[in-house]
């Protein structure tokens, strides 16, 4: 298990290194002059040059990259070129809203998707056909459209939830919950469908196995066969879907945050990328890659725990 984890962590670090490196050089290749943009069109050439020196933009790109990387390794992701705030501080503000939404979406879609999948696999018939029909429909509707409809119906017309904004858990747990219900729903809906379909398929496969018939013939209760044996063996593919769900939710959060005006990582990425705020873009990319690697690692560990064969593969 130790070497298994080591391999996964090593792979994650390599992936992180490659992605931030590519991002750094791609953004530099765009060729914008952030110093001119920050100071405005009326600033003199001398002031612009001084700003370039202040930001370190007068150094060769390779040197800028090495400087950034060495600082980043020590945990210093630099400061925003536009607001002069430390990038770690900006990420500290942006991460909780996004994680609240994404983790909420994973939990909701996992629980509801699994329940629906199990019910459809065991009941079959009309329930199963209904699931397949609605799953196809729901998966075809983009998250931003769901978000807009939810905001108009449940926030504007019914007034049940705030239409925009995010309240931190520390400020008010109940307001926090209210502020993430609609974004979580928007992000979770498509994932519920895909997880349900995945669980349904795996469950049906497992339920056809000989050992399930054997267990039943020995007189084990349906509940025990279903939860202790069948679901556990069917969980592997579903876990993979959950890790994919996380990646989809992270990317979907860019749009959902915009619709609900939530100041999360997606908003931060959007704003900083549009004005070429390189340190913030790199910070957002780095933290997103770390999150994705982390979730994949957790899923790998869970799969290894469920199925020991994975550890040696």
């Amino acid at each position, binding site marked *: 298990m130790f070497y298994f984890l080591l391999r996964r962590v090593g792979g994650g670090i390599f992936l992180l290194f490659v992605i931030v490196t590519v991002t750094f050089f791609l953004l530099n290749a765009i060729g*914008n*002059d952030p110093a*001119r*943009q920050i*100071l*405005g*069109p*009326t*600033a003199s050439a001398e*002031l612009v040059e001084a700003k370039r020196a202040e930001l370190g933009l007068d150094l060769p790109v390779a040197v800028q990259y090495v400087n950034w990387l060495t600082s980043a390794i020590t945990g210093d992701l630099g400061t925003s070129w*536009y*607001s*002069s*705030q430390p990038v770690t501080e900006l990420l500290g*503000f942006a991460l909780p809203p996004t994680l609240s939404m994404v983790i909420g979406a994973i939990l909701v879609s996992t629980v509801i998707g699994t329940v629906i999948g199990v019910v459809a696999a065991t009941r079959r018939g009309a329930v199963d056909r209904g699931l397949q029909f609605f799953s196809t429909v729901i998966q075809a509707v983009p998250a931003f459209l769901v978000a*807009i409809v939810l*905001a*108009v119906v449940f*926030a*504007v017309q019914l*007034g*049940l*939830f*705030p*239409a*925009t*904004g995010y*309240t931190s858990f520390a400020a*008010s*747990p*109940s*307001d926090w*919950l*209210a*502020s993430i*219900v609609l974004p979580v729903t928007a992000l979770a809906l498509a994932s519920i469908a895909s997880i349900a379909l995945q669980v349904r398929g795996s469950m049906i496969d497992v339920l056809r196995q000989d050992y399930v018939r054997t267990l039943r013939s020995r007189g084990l209760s349906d509940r025990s066969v279903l939860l202790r044996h069948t679901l556990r063996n069917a969980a592997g593919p579903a876990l993979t879907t959950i890790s994919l769900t996380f990646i989809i939710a992270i990317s979907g959060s860019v749009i959902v945050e*915009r*619709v*609900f*005006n939530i*100041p999360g990582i997606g*908003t931060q990425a*959007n*704003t900083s990328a*549009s*004005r*070429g705020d390189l340190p913030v873009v790199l910070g957002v990319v780095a933290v997103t890659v770390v999150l994705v690697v982390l979730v994949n690692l957790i899923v790998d560990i869970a799969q290894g725990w469920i199925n020991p064969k994975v550890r040696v593969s």
Partner: protein
Amino acid sequence: MRNKLAAAIVAACALVLTACSGASPNTAGETQELRIGAISPIASFEPGNFDAGPGSAFIQPVYDTILRNDSEGEPQPSIATEWSYDDSGTELSLTLRDDVTFTDGAKLDAEAVKANLEAAKAGTGETAGQLRFIDTVTVEDPTHLTISLSAVDPSLLTNLGGAAGSLASPEALGTPELATTPVGSGPYVFDAAASQTGVTYAYTRNPDYWNADDFPFDGITITVFNDGNAVTNALRSGQIDFAGISDQAAETLESDRLKVESFPAYTASGVFLFDRNGTIVPALADVRVRQAINMAFDREQIVEQVYAGVGTPTAQSFSESSAAFDPSFEKYEHDVDAAKALLAEAGYADGFTLPMPDLGPIDPKRQAAVTEALTAIGITPQYEPVNGETFISDLLSGKYPAAIFNLNSHRPWDFAQLALLPDSLWNPFHTTDENIVDLVNMAQTQTGEEADATFRELNEYIVDQAWFATLVQPNSVFGVSSAIDVEPRKFSTWPPIWNFTPAS
């Protein structure tokens, strides 16, 4: 176990339902908090580094200004109670209040005003440019100072009554913290703990403010939105009281809870014919070509179809609200045949190609209207892809001979400085016209009716020379909660916060 689960679900639902307090609208008669929606955050709170448009909403709660412009745009007493120019118009003497203190305890005196003016002039924002004629500031005593100018500046007093006259604590000037945490002497105090840079800006009442009666709200919150739908939803659900909205949203927004207000935007909108020297497109050097372009547009129809009927169709770029504007200067009737004849007379019977930045992705209706009109008289717009981040600097560097654009059109003097002189920022090809220079120089030392007459002459000359193909002076449209009233200020794109009051 099952009961516990059920209880947990019920508790969670109860929590959600009790949490449904996100939208607690202000109601008429209450004076709680003024909640404003903005489309972009303020770049910096440092004097000299902020803009004078919607950014004013962020700085007015915390900063007093040397003077304060009233709703007609005229300077009135504020921190300076009296002021006068010498005979040359280049020495401005100010008398200051002696009872104002910044919220960090520093005294607001003549030294503090001098420090602010010098810091602001050294900045690079729009307000720094407004102070460019200031040469020296001399402190006579704690309540008196003299501002010496390098040349007469007809707009200095009104600029000191706006964002350029903002006063930050001298203790905070020059510190990096001032960019994100303002320290002033204004009616409100910036609440850093409740604010998040770029997202939310919260202000609480300054208990020691010298003019509290002018500010009825107990607090102000400004929320930054990245999306027009989110702004509309926030207005409709009562989360905010005031925000700029699109013409389209305005058509569906009005309700018991919301009013739609439309104020002049103080911009000239249309096709800007920058290349009057013919550097890139030789045809544009011929005044007949520029006049033909002006005749290609059906301005009334464009206002109806592109601007949802909100705005004034006009070929004049000087503000409709200024003395320079005159309805008799509307000399370009929509006439395709006459425009074609004029082009033929200039030697362009077969038309020509006009490169312009492609604004189709962000402003498709306006671009379509321009394309249709130009094509009708034989001119082919050749749209070039635009990089949003470098768009303005590309325009300023003379990359495009013409562009669909909006430009501030405040007071006549300001517009002349902005766009008409050889070194004006928005004269990217540095077109020089001695008649324009002479008229602007003449107006610089004039006042009252005399200055108005000169600016009218200048405006008519610009229209005759077809320096621009202005189509409309549009309005800004705002969604306003029925709990508040708001009054615009002349020559300002955004109402000042002292013009917001609880609904009467």
